[in-house]
């Protein structure tokens, strides 16, 4: 499965267009990590707990998107985009979406 943010693949032709595929996940902060983050907020700097949390969620969202692409018989997902939105305080939705295609 080829996952790329490009719209075309140099040297390869799109044989079949299968439409939009997406994967998303909603994650909430861990209460303990949140407390650590509040303490870290006094001195500033990177909040590693949050970086990891969001990164893991993004990997999960991408994996779900790839699964959906496999289900429709694609061998590549083109023009992949990410989007993050906060749902309620302390929870975020991460979305990955792209165009599923069959490449020759």
């Amino acid at each position, binding site marked *: 499965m*080829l*996952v*790329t*943010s*490009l*719209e*075309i*693949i*140099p*040297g*390869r032709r799109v044989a079949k267009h299968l439409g939009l595929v997406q994967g998303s996940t909603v994650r909430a902060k861990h209460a303990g990590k949140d407390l650590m*983050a509040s303490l*870290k*907020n*006094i*001195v*500033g*700097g*990177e*909040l*590693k707990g*949050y*970086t990891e949390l*969001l*990164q893991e969620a*993004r990997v999960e969202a*991408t994996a779900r998107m790839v699964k959906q692409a496999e289900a429709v018989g694609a061998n590549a997902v083109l023009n*992949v*985009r*990410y*989007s*993050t*939105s*906060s749902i309620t*305080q302390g929870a*975020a939705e991460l979305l990955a979406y792209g165009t599923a295609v069959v490449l020759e």
Partner: protein
Amino acid sequence: MDHFNLIVFLGLLLLGYVAGRIAESRHYRSIRQREAELGDVLVFASRFPPDFRVRPQTLVGGSVVVGEDYFKSIVAALQKLVGGRLKSYETLLDRARREAVLRMKEEARQKGASMVVNVKFQTFSIPGRNPNSLRAVEVLAYGTALGPAMPRG
């Protein structure tokens, strides 16, 4: 009791200022050093690669969450009264964005790529207890890493 609160407030302000300054200058030093090291991984915002030779490719990204310090939050709250430039947040976002690009470049180099094209940024702010206040901001940079061109055939 009032005095106690004031002392705690000033203590946090001082701690935030000193620790925040140290963290920021250390971060900037590390950013500059790594930017020099990773200078040969080229990054393009254009949608298409500069040449159309066949190359191995993969999606790469880098993200970082940078939190504000207590001093910055107070300064920003005061600056918001008069409007204009919020300099204390400008450096915060600058650091986050450059760090995210560096992490993306590191991943690209690890995968043997020589350039990253179609780079997109995304900024997500994590609110604090008061919904109007900023607590931390996440910056994500992602794009398609392209390896060295493969010989034809």
